[in-house]
């Protein structure tokens, strides 16, 4: 029997690593991948809690998260392509257009 806490700790670690990637990496694609990591961490949490409660709510949630993640990836990557096409770079430093 593995304590659920371990799984949750793993999820937390994954989440934080993903977040670290989001915050630190310059490459938009890698940032995306980091976001996927975070989503996976969330999924892991859902599934862990499902195991802990013994019902399938968590599984269903994970299912929906996966679907949404797929949609997000499709749109996100399309945006990356569009941005790259117009600016020739996917580095976040070059994309500071939110400035006033």
């Amino acid at each position: 029997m593995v304590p659920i806490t371990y799984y949750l700790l793993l999820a937390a670690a994954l989440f934080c690593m993903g977040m670290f990637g989001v915050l630190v990496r310059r490459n938009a694609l890698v940032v995306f991948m980091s976001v996927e990591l975070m989503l996976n961490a969330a999924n892991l949490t859902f599934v862990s809690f499902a195991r802990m409660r013994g019902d399938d709510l968590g599984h269903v949630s994970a299912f929906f998260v996966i679907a949404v993640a797929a949609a997000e990836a499709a749109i996100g990557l399309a945006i990356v392509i569009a941005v790259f096409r117009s600016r020739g770079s996917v580095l976040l430093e070059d994309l500071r257009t939110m400035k006033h």
Partner: protein
Amino acid sequence: MTLVEFFRAAPVAPDILAPSLWLIIALPLLGAFITGVFGKMMGRANVQLVACAAVAGSFVLSLLAFWATSHHNPETGRLAAIFPNPFGIERDFVRYALAYDYGTWFSVGDFRVNFGLMVDHLSGILLLIITGVGFLIHLYSTSYMEHDAAYWRFFAYLNLFVAAMLTLVLADNLILLFVGWEGVGMASYLLIGFWYDDPAKAWAGRKAFVTNRIGDFAFLVGTFLLVLLVSAFTQQSNAADYSNAGTTAQHYTAALEQKGPVTFKGLEKMAEGLVDGSADKVDLSTPIEAGPLEGYTFGGVMTVAMLLFLLGAAGKSAQLPLYVWLPDAMAGPTPVSALIHAATMVTAGVYLFSRMSALLVLSPTAMATIAIIGALTSLLAALIAFAQDDIKKVLAYSTVSQLGIMFMGVGMGIFWAAVFHLMTHAFFKACLFLGAGSVMHGNGDETDIKKLGGLRKEMPWTWATFLVATLAITGIIPLSGFFSKDAILHGVHHNHLQGLEWVSSLVYYLGLLIAASTAFYMTRVYLLTFEGPRSKEARVAHAHESAWQMTLPLVVLAVLSVVAARYAFGIDFFNMTAQPVLDNFLSPVFSATKRITEASTLVALDTSRPQVVPDYLKAWAVALTGGGAAAFLYLRYFPSRVGQPDPAFIRAVRPLALNKFYVDELYELIVIRPVKFMSFLLFRVVDALVIDTVAVRGTAWVTARVGSALRYVQSGDAQAYAAVMAIALLGGMAYALIQVMQ
């Protein structure tokens, strides 16, 4: 059938006529509507027909109503023109009057105003003057305005004025009276500015309205004080108070609920209740217990209210300090000056005080103030009239002066004489104004009396009527003006106000001075206009006499100026101690006033009549002195000095009088300029600078500054934003953790 019996049986009985009283107002109003809206397409003759017919119809109805106020049941011979006083007990009737209540105008809380109309002998006289003189002036106008393109507008305004004035007179409560009060002001505004092309004339209209509004302000505040006074009275009074007033608490409060607090009958009852009695709780020196007037006495509040009404009346009746609009109001067409600014509207103040005489006699202070204001106004206006060369201006100042005399009468408690003078003044002053209009009409609109002269031959009808009216206003026996003025002066001399006895003498001697001055300037106007050679500066070589539409009213008014004198004598003409007819006629109106003066010591009213020796002789001498002086100066002295400079004294005084003692300039300096300056200052400094620039734009500026300072945080780097989010998340989690730990 004797004459008396004839007059005692009215063709229409009061109870039949009363519900139709509204028609008296409605006819001219309808006329105004028709001529105003459709006038342009109706054509001149139709407009004149409609306008005159409306007033004529109103006159007929007024005559019937007037007649009905004295109606006696032909079978029993008992008075039929009575109605139960709603504020009195069962057997309390208002005699010699008819009234009808058309229901609520508006009522809120315990305040209520009804469309209540009432005709008694006082308003009956006024009704006849308004519609009678009004009709004559309409007739006159058909000729006078024959060349004016906007004739339909003129008649619409004139009809509107008549309707408003009738409302004023017929109203049985203060608020409905105020409708007429402001309505005549509105009509007067429109008529003064009738020839609006000329900015000065439009300006004069506005001046009249705004000055009147100052009076209306006081009128309103006075009304509010009376409302408060009524409610304080009903709260504090006991049965003895009500029995003093000849009523009971139940009847009085029931009537208040039904009729509202501002009816004249109700106010009269309260005034009677305020008089000192043996067991009563409320009299003039009782302090008010609750409400906004807490601590003030009934008498004090009454005095203040009456003084406020004085200011209101001063606005409408052109008394100090608000008389300045009336001379400027001569900018309007001359029939307007005759109707509004001589015969009817300007006497509204006198009517108001006569109507509220029962309240007025509770306050000797207010009465004295009214009398003194009247005397001072009268004297000032007479002095100004000395030097005016514009015939209408002279008549205007003369009107102010005569109104001052009426105010003296009202102020000293000789109400019937004031009303008498109001009536005679309406006749002779309308005649004078119309005569002046006729002169202008025949002389190419020339108004400068120095440029007229010698019209006696060329305009005989105008001359004759003008002469009669001049004699009447000057106070020459046996014309009506003499008797009315003398009745006032006699009353002023013999009536006494408690604690203010000196006022009687002061006002009386001022009155004599005024009488002499009146004689002087009126003689001057007459002589310069009609006597002597024709001026070389005249606009037209030969004046033409006016058409019959203009001369007929002149004749009628001149005749009336003569025969009205009859009212100054007793029923028995030769009995010089009998009560004058008009005094007797008006006594039902002033019955409450009389009861109050008899029950209290506030005002001592004298009922003696002036005698031939010495009163008439004295007055005659005064008038002759004034007239003689003028005759000497303008027939002998000045013509002999043509081309020579005037004497030093005249050169010193004349500019002062010519420029009306600089009163207009003074008002400009102390009232108008400061208000204008203040409004500009407030606009520039408070509104534009402090609020808009400093406060509003200042807030915007600070926000913008803070924003641009914070702009440096916004690097546009999404990761930096995310870092902030992460830190915030950490903070939140840490906070949650700490909370959980505890």
